[in-house]
C-alpha cells in the first residue's frame, strides 16, 4: 500500500526533476562534492593509516625499544684527542629490567660494531650486530636461506654470521654461499643464513634493523671487539665506550606495554641521569598514528560537512522556490483530498530523490578520486564498505533534513489561497 505510493511519488519526483534538468543538476552539486569528499577522504585516510599500522606491526606491538644515545654535553667536552666518552645502556640495565618487571617476557641485547666485511673479492661496510637468537623472534624477520642463530651457537661462541638479503646481494652471496667464509676485520665467520630486511622500505618509522646488518652471537662480539670503539675523524680520534647499543624488550601482553614502558623509563632515569638513552614504543607510535588519522578525519570531515551543509541549503532553497512555483498544484492536490502528511511525503521524496541522485554521482566521483591519487601520487588508498554506506546515509539524511522545512511549508499552505495562486 504505502510502498506503491512511495514508488509512484518517486516516479513523479524524477519527472519533476527532469523537467528542470540544469536546475536539478546545479542543486545537486553541493551533495555531489560533499559525498565525493567524504568517500575520497575515507579512502585516503584508511590507506595512510593501514600503511602506518603495517609498519608499526613490523616493529612488533608488544616490543619496547631502548637505544643508547650519546649525551649532548659529552660531545661538547671532547677537547682532548684521547678523551673517551662512556655512555649508554649497560648489561646491568638488562638484568635489572628482567628482574624488576614481571610483565617483561624477554630482553634482547644488541651490540653494534662497524666493520668492513669481505666475501671473496667483494667488500661491504657492515653493521655488525651482536645479539641473541631471540632477536629473530622479536623483530620477526623471515629467514630466506639457511638458518638464523640458535642458542647452541651462542653457547659455543661460534664464529657464525647471518646476512641480510641486501647485504647478501651486495656481496654476491647466494644460497650456495652458505657455509662459505666472511671476513670481518681480521676475523673469519661462517655464513649460515640470509634473512629478510624490512628497513629502508620507506616510511618515517625507525626499525631495529638496517640493510647492511650482519648478525653474530653477542658473546662473540663482546669477546672480539669489546666495548670500546674508535672513530677516526679529521685530526682527532673519538673513542667511545658503550656496553649495549640497543635493548629490545618484549612485554607479555599488549595491555601491559605502556605501563611497562613508563616503569622502564623511571627506572632508567634513576641510573642514567645524563639521559643517554631513548625509549620508543611501537604501540605508542600506533596510538599516535591513530590520533593523526583522527585529526585528519576531523579536518576533511569538516570540509565535507561544510559542503554538505551548503549543498543542503541549496536543496532547501530550490525546494522552497519549487513549492512557490507549484503552489497551485499543491492547492489542487489538497482540494482533491490529499492530506497534509501526503503533501509532506511528496516533497520529501522529491528532495530525497534529488539528494540521493547527487549522492550517487558523488559516490562515483569519490571512488574515482582515490584511484587518481593512487596513480598520480603513489599513495595507497582503501575504499571500505563502510564509506559506501555512509555516502548513502549522508545523502538520504541531507534530503530529509533540508527537505522537511519546504515540505511542511507546502503542506501548511491554505488550499483556497493556493488554488487562487497564479
Amino acid at each position, binding site marked *: 500500500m504505502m510502498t506503491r505510493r512511495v514508488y509512484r511519488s518517486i516516479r513523479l519526483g524524477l519527472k519533476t526533476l527532469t523537467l528542470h534538468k540544469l536546475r536539478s543538476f546545479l542543486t545537486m552539486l553541493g551533495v555531489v562534492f560533499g559525498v565525493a569528499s567524504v568517500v575520497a577522504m575515507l579512502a585516503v585516510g584508511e590507506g595512510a593509516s593501514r600503511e602506518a599500522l603495517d609498519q608499526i606491526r613490523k616493529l612488533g606491538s608488544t616490543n619496547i625499544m631502548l637505544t643508547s644515545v650519546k649525551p649532548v654535553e659529552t660531545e661538547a667536552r671532547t677537547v682532548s684527542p684521547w678523551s673517551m666518552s662512556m655512555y649508554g645502556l649497560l648489561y646491568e640495565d638488562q638484568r635489572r629490567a628482567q628482574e624488576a618487571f614481571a610483565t617483561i617476557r624477554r630482553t634482547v641485547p644488541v651490540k653494534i660494531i662497524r666493520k668492513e666485511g669481505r666475501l671473496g673479492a667483494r667488500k661491504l661496510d657492515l653493521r655488525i650486530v651482536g645479539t641473541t637468537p631471540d632477536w629473530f623472534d622479536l623483530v620477526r624477520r623471515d629467514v630466506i636461506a639457511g638458518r638464523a642463530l640458535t642458542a647452541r651457537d651462542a653457547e659455543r661462541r661460534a664464529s657464525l654470521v647471518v646476512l641480510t638479503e641486501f647485504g647478501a646481494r651486495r656481496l654476491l652471496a647466494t644460497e650456495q654461499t652458505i657455509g662459505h667464509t666472511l671476513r670481518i676485520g681480521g676475523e673469519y665467520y661462517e655464513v649460515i643464513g640470509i634473512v629478510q630486511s624490512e628497513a629502508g622500505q620507506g616510511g618515517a618509522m625507525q626499525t631495529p634493523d638496517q640493510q647492511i646488518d650482519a648478525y653474530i652471537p653477542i658473546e662473540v662480539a663482546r669477546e672480539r671487539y669489546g666495548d670500546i670503539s674508535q672513530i677516526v675523524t679529521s685530526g682527532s680520534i673519538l673513542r667511545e665506550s658503550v656496553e649495549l647499543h640497543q635493548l629490545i624488550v618484549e612485554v607479555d601482553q599488549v595491555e601491559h606495554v605502556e605501563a611497562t614502558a613508563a616503569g622502564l623509563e623511571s627506572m632508567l632515569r634513576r641510573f642514567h641521569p645524563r639521559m643517554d638513552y631513548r625509549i620508543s614504543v611501537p604501540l605508542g607510535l600506533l596510538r599516535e598514528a591513530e590520533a593523526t588519522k583522527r585529526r585528519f578525519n576531523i579536518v576533511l570531515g569538516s570540509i565535507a560537512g561544510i559542503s554538505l551543509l551548503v549543498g543542503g541549503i541549496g536543496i532547501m532553497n530550490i525546494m522552497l522556490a519549487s513549492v512557490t512555483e507549484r503552489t497551485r*498544484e499543491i492547492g489542487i492536490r489538497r482540494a482533491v*483530498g*490529499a492530506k497534509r502528511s*501526503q503533501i509532506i511525503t511528496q516533497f520529501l521524496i522529491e528532495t530525497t530523490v534529488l539528494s540521493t541522485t547527487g549522492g550517487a554521482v558523488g559516490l562515483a566521483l569519490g571512488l574515482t578520486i582515490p584511484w587518481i591519487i593512487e596513480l598520480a601520487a603513489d599513495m595507497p588508498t582503501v575504499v571500505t564498505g563502510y564509506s559506501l554506506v555512509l555516502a548513502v546515509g549522508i545523502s538520504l539524511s541531507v534530503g530529509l533534513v533540508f527537505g522537511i522545512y519546504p515540505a511542511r511549508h507546502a503542506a501548511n499552505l491554505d488550499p*483556497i489561497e493556493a488554488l487562487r495562486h497564479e
Partner: protein
Amino acid sequence: MTQPVGAPSARGMPNGADLVCLEDITKIYQVGDTEVRALDGLTVSFQRGSFWAIMGPSGSGKSTLLNLLGCLDRPTAGRYVLEGQDVADLDDNALSTIRLRHIGFIFQSFNLIPQLTVRENIELPLFYLDWNPDRSRARAEETAARLGLSDRLNHRPAELSGGQQQRVAIARALAANPNMLLADEPTGNLDSATGAQIMAVLTELNQQGKTIIMVTHETDIARHARQRLHMRDGRIDSMEGAAA
C-alpha cells in the same frame, strides 16, 4: 444516509432527502481592522439529486459558500451536516478524507496539474485513495470514455482545448465516484458553445444521480440547473425551483 437523532426541526434542518444542511453559517474574514462578513447567518439545505445554480453579484459570497460546502474551509460559526455527519468541527485530515470520498471539484480555470498526463490527472484522487494501479487505470479509462477523452489519455493538459481540459477536470471529479459535484463558474473560461457542451455533461450527470451545486453569474448557464439560489451580501436573496 442516516439522519442524526434529535436534529432540530428548524427550516433547512436535515431530513432524509437532504445531502447537505447549513444552519446559521457565518464566515468572517478579518482584513486589517475591518471584518468582512462573506457569509452572514446562512441557513440552507440541498437535497440529494438536486442541481443548483448559485447566483448573485460579485462579492456576495458564492465562492465562499462553495468552499465551505466542499470542506476546503471552515465556517466561523454555524453547523454543517454532510451526509448526516457534522463536519464543522472536523480536523484537517478528516476534511481531506471527506473531500476525497464525497466531493468532486470543478473550477473555472480547470486546475489540472500541467506535468501530469490526462490519465494521471484523472487518477489523482485514486492515487490518494491508494487504489492498485490496474484498477485505477481501468477507472480512469472508463471515466475518460464517458467524457469522450479516450484518445487524449496520454496528452498533457496544455495540448488540449479549454473544453477538453474542463472535461478532464470533470473526469477527475468523478473518478472516485462522489455524490456531490461542486463547480465554481465551470464555463467562465469557455466560449458559449463549449460552455453549453459542458452544461450538457453536467445535466447528464445530474440525471444519473449526482448532486451538483454550481456557481455562475450567467443566466443562460443557470437555466440548465433545476434549482436556483440568489445571494446578496452573504445571505440568501431568493430561491426558485426548490422542492418543497
